[in-house]
């Protein structure tokens, strides 16, 4: 472990096309394996969740971000630090709900869809649904239950890609989850 700590963050950057294409191969495989798009969306979300719960550790270890005071700060960290670090983009945070428990991440470009065109028969496929799972999983590990979904997608003809995030509740710590 100590051997790795002196690696700079720069050396962790890698070819984005590899990631994009691998993701594409995965979605293709899922579309082959499942008959309807809803199932594919669900599977992508599940896989994203698995990634998220691991990714948060990597993120907390490498960024010096502490606990967020409120949801606004969370939004900022997600957009300006996490997205920048992992996907190299900085989405803008807008459309706050009056209660401050809901906001949108607007992405001008989405690195996951660089070489993608959706065929007509996959109209309800949410191609980048993995991202929702990642966000949900990661936030759950820092005691935040959040609802994440795509509300606009450039793949489906919208001008921008929008991820809507809604804070549900704070997850209590030390829940004796079924163990006596």
């Amino acid at each position, binding site marked *: 472990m100590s051997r790795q700590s002196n690696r700079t963050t720069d*050396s*962790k*950057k*890698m*070819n*984005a*096309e*590899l*990631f*994009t*294409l*691998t*993701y*594409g*191969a*995965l979605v*293709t*495989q*899922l579309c082959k*394996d499942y008959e309807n798009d809803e199932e594919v969306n669900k*599977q992508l979300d599940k*896989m994203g969740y*698995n*990634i998220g719960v*691991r*990714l948060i550790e*990597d993120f907390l270890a490498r960024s010096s971000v502490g606990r967020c005071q409120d949801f606004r700060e969370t939004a900022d960290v997600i957009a300006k630090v996490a997205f920048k*670090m*992992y*996907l*190299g983009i900085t989405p803008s945070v807008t459309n706050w709900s009056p209660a401050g428990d809901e906001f949108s991440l607007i992405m001008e470009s989405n*690195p996951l869809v660089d*070489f993608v065109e959706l065929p007509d028969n996959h109209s309800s496929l949410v191609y980048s649904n993995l991202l929702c799972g990642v966000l949900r999983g990661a936030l759950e590990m820092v005691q935040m239950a959040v609802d994440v979904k795509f509300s606009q997608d450039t793949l489906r003809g919208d001008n921008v890609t929008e991820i809507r995030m809604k804070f549900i509740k704070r997850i209590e710590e030390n829940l004796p989850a079924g163990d006596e």
Partner: protein
Amino acid sequence: MADEALFQFLHNEVIQYIYKSSEHGEMENGRCITKLENMGFRVGQGLIERFTKDTARFKDELDVMKFICKDFWTSVFKKQIDNLRTNHQGIYVLQDNKFRLLTQLSAGKQYLEHAPKVRKHNGEKLTCQALFIPVQLSPHKWFSLPLSLQYLAFTCGLVRGGLSNLGVKSIVTAEVSVMPACKFQVMIQKM
């Protein structure tokens, strides 16, 4: 630029997914490797198209292999292949002493030992078995692949796909002797 961690986690999930779907019984275990390999193949095809956009035409097969070892490997895994050997009859062995996708696994023998041995010597102890995937090579021959090979199948495909788009038809296999080093063997199929 995407982050390395992201790709590694995604790669893990892909493997998990492929193997989980095989548990439901519709698919033989050995086909998982094939499926992973095919996904890698498609990705390799795409990548090589991007990487060779501005390069001059390759002189011969060796030239192509050198490109794979240097530029291709550097773009994908951030290092060159450490050793390239060939018998000049269409077989190339590419050795990577510190393969990126294996560095996260234990560097000991934990994921390496061959399952048949384990089973033969103490037939009762099946605890190690979960780490191995039985693969059917022919109707009567079953082999167990070490866990680490799951982590190589995608890359085998990557290489095969890359070569295929450069006009070289091949079969790519991989083996691990000491973690995290591994060897990829490329057998060129003559047209």
